[in-house]
C-alpha cells in the first residue's frame, strides 16, 4: 500500500508539472539579429527606419508543423532578415496556452502580436478588448467590426477560391481520361470555397471534363482519403485535388501507389510523393505576415479590419515543384492568373456563383450553416 501512495503522489506531481508547462507555453525562441549578409544590410537600413518587435503565438502544431505555423514563422524570419526587426515565437501546447502566451508578448512590449489559426479567435478578441493600445493580427479569422471596438485586432483571410481555380485549371488541361476528382474535408462555407474554385477552374479549362467530388467528413482520416481516391481512380479519374487536411495525405498515398496524379493543398506537398503531386494550391501565410508586419514598420498599418490575401498580393498561389506541368499549359495558367489579377476573370467563391456560371455542373452536397 505504501507503494501506491508514493505512486499517487508522484503522478499528481507529474500532472501538476505538465499543466504548469502548458501554461508557460513551452519553447520560445527569440533573436534580434538577422543572418548572414542580409543582417548587415538590414542593420544599415535599421539605422534609418526604426525597427519593431513582432511576436508569433502558434497554434498547437508548433513552428515545424509543415503547415501554417511553419509558414508563418518563415514569413517572420524573412521580415527579420530584411528589416532587422526583432521577431520571436511561443508555441502553444494546448488551448489553455493561448492567453498566457499572448500575455507574455504584451509584457515584453512587443509591437505586433500574431496568432495562427481560427482556434485563437476568441483569445485574440479578448486580448484586444483588454489591451486597447496593443496591436494584434490573426491568420484565418474574419472579425466582425463590433467584436473589435478598439480597432486593434486585424483578421487575415485568403482567397482560396483563386488558388483552387488555378490548380483546377491545370487539372482540366492535363486530364487524359476526361475525369478529375475532388476530396474535401468537413462541409462548411470556408471549405466549399476550395471546391467551388476547383470546379470553376476545371470547367474553364475544359467544359467537357467530368468532375467527381465529395466531402470525407474528416480532416484527420487518411484511410478515408485513400479509400475515396481508390474508388475515383477505379472509376477512371486521373487527377484528384484534396482539400481535407490529413485526410488528403491518404489520397496522395493512393496516387503514389497507383501512379496517378494528386494535387496538394495549403503548402507545397510535393515532398510527400515527388513523382505524383502535380501541383499544390498554396496559401501564402508567410507573405501575409511579412506584408502586414512591414506595413506596421512603415507606419501605414491601420488595425481593426480584415485583410484579404489573394493572387494580386501574392497571398495565394500554386506550386510548380517537380516541373510536372508542361510549358504550354504553364503559360496558359500564368495568363489566366494575370486575368484574375487584372479583374478580367471573376472566380466564383460560392456554390450559387458557380451555378450561375456553369449551370448544373456542381453536385457537391449543399453546406448547411447553423
Amino acid at each position, binding site marked *: 500500500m505504501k507503494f501506491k501512495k508514493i505512486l499517487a503522489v508522484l503522478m499528481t506531481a507529474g500532472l501538476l508539472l505538465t499543466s504548469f508547462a502548458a501554461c508557460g507555453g513551452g519553447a520560445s525562441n527569440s533573436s534580434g539579429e538577422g543572418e548572414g549578409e542580409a543582417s548587415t544590410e538590414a542593420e544599415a537600413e535599421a539605422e534609418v527606419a526604426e525597427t519593431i518587435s513582432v511576436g508569433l503565438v502558434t497554434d498547437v502544431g508548433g513552428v515545424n*508543423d509543415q503547415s501554417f505555423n511553419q509558414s508563418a514563422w518563415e514569413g517572420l524570419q524573412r521580415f527579420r532578415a530584411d528589416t532587422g526587426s526583432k521577431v520571436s515565437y511561443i508555441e502553444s501546447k494546448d488551448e489553455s496556452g493561448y492567453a498566457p502566451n499572448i500575455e507574455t508578448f504584451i509584457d515584453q512590449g512587443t509591437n505586433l502580436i500574431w496568432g495562427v489559426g481560427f482556434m485563437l479567435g476568441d483569445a485574440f478578441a479578448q486580448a484586444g478588448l483588454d489591451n486597447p493600445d496593443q496591436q494584434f493580427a490573426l491568420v484565418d479569422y474574419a472579425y466582425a467590426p463590433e467584436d473589435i471596438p478598439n480597432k486593434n485586432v486585424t483578421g487575415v483571410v485568403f482567397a482560396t477560391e483563386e488558388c483552387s481555380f488555378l490548380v483546377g485549371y491545370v487539372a482540366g488541361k492535363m486530364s487524359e481520361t476526361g475525369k478529375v476528382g475532388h476530396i474535401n474535408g468537413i462541409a462548411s462555407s470556408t471549405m466549399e470555397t476550395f471546391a467551388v474554385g476547383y470546379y470553376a477552374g476545371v470547367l474553364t479549362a475544359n467544359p467537357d471534363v467530368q468532375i*467527381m467530388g*465529395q*466531402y470525407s467528413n474528416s480532416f484527420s482520416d487518411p484511410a478515408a482519403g485513400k479509400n475515396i481516391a481508390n474508388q475515383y481512380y*477505379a472509376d477512371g479519374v486521373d487527377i484528384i485535388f484534396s482539400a481535407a487536411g490529413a485526410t488528403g495525405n491518404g489520397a496522395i*498515398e493512393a496516387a503514389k501507389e497507383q501512379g496517378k496524379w494528386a494535387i496538394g493543398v495549403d503548402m507545397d506537398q510535393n515532398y510527400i510523393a515527388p513523382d505524383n503531386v502535380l501541383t499544390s494550391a498554396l496559401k501564402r501565410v508567410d507573405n501575409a505576415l511579412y506584408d502586414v508586419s512591414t506595413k506596421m514598420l512603415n507606419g501605414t498599418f491601420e488595425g481593426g479590419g480584415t485583410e484579404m490575401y489573394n493572387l494580386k498580393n501574392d497571398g495565394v498561389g500554386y506550386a510548380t515543384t517537380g516541373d510536372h506541368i508542361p510549358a504550354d499549359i504553364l503559360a496558359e495558367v500564368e495568363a489566366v492568373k494575370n486575368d484574375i489579377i487584372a479583374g478580367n476573370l471573376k472566380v466564383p467563391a460560392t456554390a450559387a456563383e458557380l451555378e450561375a456560371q456553369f449551370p448544373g455542373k456542381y453536385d457537391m452536397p449543399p453546406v448547411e450553416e447553423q
Partner: protein
Amino acid sequence: MMFGASDIGLLISSTLTYATPLIIAGMGSIMSETSGVVNIGIEGKMVIGAFSCAAASTLSGSPWIGLFIAILVGALFGLLHALACITFKADQTISGIAINLLAPGAAIYFCKALFDGSTQTRPVELTGKLPLVLGGVFPENSFLDFTFKNYVSVYVCLLLALCIWFLLFRTRTGLRVRAVGEHPRAAATLGVGVFRIRYFCVVLSGVLAALGGAVIPLSTVSYFFPAIISGQGFIAIAAVIFGKYKPGNTVLACLLFGFCKSLALSLGNPKFELSVSVHLLSMIPYVITLLVLLFIGKSHAPAASGKIYDSAGH
C-alpha cells in the same frame, strides 16, 4: 447508377483497410483484459508504435526493422503499464490515461529530434512498405483484384486473431490467463503465478497495440504525422467490449465498424446520385452500432478486470 461488382470489391478492401489496425490493437486489448488488467492506454501505444515503426522504417529502408522496433517499443510501454498496475498496484485506469498522455508527447519529441525539428517523419519509399499480396494475380480493376489485392497486414491480422483465440481457449496457458482474470486468488491457490501471467499478457498487449499503430504508416500512408492515430485505440477497446471479449466476435465488430465507415464514403460518391446529407451518411456507423447492440445483449467483462490483486491477501 447501381453498385457494380468492382464497387463491392472496393467496399470490401476499404472495410479491411479500416479494420486491420483495429483488429490487431483489439487483440492487444483482449489479452490484457482477459488477464484482469484494464488497458485504456491502447491509443497511446498505437501512436508510439506508428511513430517508432515509421521512423525506423524510413531510416533503415526496411519495413521489417520498423516492425521489430515497434515491437520493442510496444513491449517497453506494456512493461511500464505492468510495472505500475501489477507490481506497484496503481489504479489501472490512471496508468492507462498517463500512457495516453505520455506516448504522443514522446512520439513528437523524438520525431523532432530525429527529423530536423519536423513533426512528421520522412515518407517511406514504396518498396519500403509492407508487401501487397495477390497483386497482379487477377485482371486489373476486377472484383477479385479489388477484393483480394491487399497489404499483407490484412491477412496477418486475421491469422493473428485465430492465434489469440487458440492461445486463450485451446491451450493450458490460455486457461490460466482466463482463470487469473476471473478469480486470481483461486488461481493462485492452485499454483498459478498470477503476477507472471499478468506481466506476460500486459506486455503482449503493448506489443500488439503498437503493431496495430505500426501497420498504418506501412500501408495506409507512408509516414508518421501527429494526427495519424485519432481515436482508433478507443474504437478498438469499444470493439472488444462489443465483441464480448472474444477474439472472433471482436474481429466481426471491427469489420462491422470498417464496413460502416466505408459504406458512408461509398454512398457519398457522386456517381450514385444519392442526394443524402453528408451528416446522415456519417451517422451510419453509430446507427448500425446501436441496432446491433439491441440484439447482442450484455457484455460481461472478466470478473477480476480492473481489480488490484495483492498476493498477501490485503
